């Protein structure tokens, strides 16, 4: 399926990547090219085939619901671009 300008804009927004209006046509063309390539799958009938959810058949392990590591606020904030008083700082979220 070919991607048009409007779809490219929507996809960029879904991906939370700013693309200016001037870049939308090129983006639409690139995405269309890749989608054209993957549409080769359309010739394959997959009726009744189970989708793969895990490549190695194994039950995921469980563990006790207890705190294993904690009290690491300083380490967690160490790489933040803007951390204040033990919190990540962001622009105003609620108007």
């Amino acid at each position: 399926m070919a991607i048009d300008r409007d779809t490219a804009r929507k996809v960029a927004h879904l991906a939370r990547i700013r693309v200016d209006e001037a870049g939308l046509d090129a983006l639409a063309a690139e995405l269309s090219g890749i989608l054209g390539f993957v549409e080769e799958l359309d010739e394959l009938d997959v009726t009744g085939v189970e989708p793969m959810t895990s490549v190695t058949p194994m039950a995921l392990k469980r563990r006790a619901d207890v705190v294993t590591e904690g009290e690491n606020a300083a380490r967690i904030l160490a790489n933040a671009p803007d951390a204040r008083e033990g919190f990540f700082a962001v622009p105003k979220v609620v108007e």
Partner: protein
Amino acid sequence: MTELTALTIAEARKGLRAKQFTARELAEAFNAAAAASAPLNAYSALTPEKALEMADAADARLAAGDAPDMCGIPLGIKDLFCTEGVPSQAASGILENFLPTYESTITSKLWEQGAVMLGKLNMDEFAMGSSNETSVYGPAVSPWRRAGSNTALTPGGSSGGSAAAVSASICMAATGTDTGGSIRQPAAFTGIVGLKPTYGRCSRWGVVAFASSLDQAGPMTRTVRDAAIMLGAMAGHDPKDSTSADIAVPDFEAALTGDIRGKRIGIPREYRVEGMSEEIDRLWREGAEKLRDAGAEIVDISLPHTKYALPAYYIIAPAEASSNLARYDGVRYGHRAKLGHGDGILDLYEKSRAEGFGREVQRRVMIGAYVLSSGFYDAYYLKAQKVRTLIKRDFDAAFDAGIDAILTPATPSAAFGIGEMADADPVQMYLNDVFTVTVNLAGLPGISVPAGLNADGLPLGLQLIGRPWGEAELITVAGALEAAENFTAKPERWW
């Protein structure tokens, strides 16, 4: 004595234990070689002081007689692995200045065994690429050149820095990761051995995620024996990765018996792709003949869904990437865009990600967002997951019919020049993975073994694919192939 930097892990292990040289001497030799390798752009960060400290600790263990196999072995680490206090940014601008406060499970295991860290290695951004050209550090350069030419060639990707460094002898071995061929393709391009283990053999904890159901780390080494030794040190269950398998790790090195008599080696007809060059075809044919001469039985097999692997991969991998890379939001770590007056949280996300991600990563994140979006999920993602089941079934049927390993080319061509693909459509670059990507989709182990030089004097590799959890058997066959190929070429030093 051979130059220290030319030693294999097995040779260095022997020399260290026999006190022919110390781990410190080894580390000093590699520190010097790494420091003099700038034109290769293989290292993104050097850690020479750390290397000496770790080497001294290894020497103390060697003196005390407590020296595991990897003790004192100088390694390069792909930038995708988080290493505590050492820059780790997955070759992406969005992780600029990121200093992990923790260590990946695999590197922790290697350090516990006494291995020595020389530095971090260049790669494609977030491991998305086949030529190392998507790296924020600029491309790594292969130590190999075409005969009579100075054209800079790609070492392949995404583990391009790892491949360049091992083949240039500026580390003894390296870690790599492989989501669609990122260990095996660069290994083939640079004349080294690259092993992608079964999905779940090695812990993914602390390795920056690309596509979680496909990603698997493995060793990149000069020999199959070295790959066996290093895999043994990397593998094993990790409670921090629920997909890592809680099964015993065999002695992979002990599998190097050299005896492949009676092994059934499958040659899949669907891998003879349209437009395949005569030199790749010949390499493949001759490789099969050599295995037959060593006593294996060569069997023609069919893996009928092979041609659908690449399109399925280019739905599944971007979908998982778009989800994994959602964490780069400019809030918790990495790059944050400078905001304008009145910009809100959405502007923060969108601007930070537009500035921090390179073009290929943006492209894949957007493709992923599209195929997962409402109304398209069934047509793309769900369908690709069904195709993945069919691809896995192809392999299951071959192994159930008694095939022990499958022999294929590793890549459709030898290494190409840096920039040669710049004007090509992204899909052209994706075709590099045509022989390797099936293995990730099916979760199988695969190994690339150097098998010859092309007409220009560039390395070519063959791939062997094994049964799930069958790395030991795969190593047996790979060892026999390596012995039969007797690949001894080395790049001439120009850097």
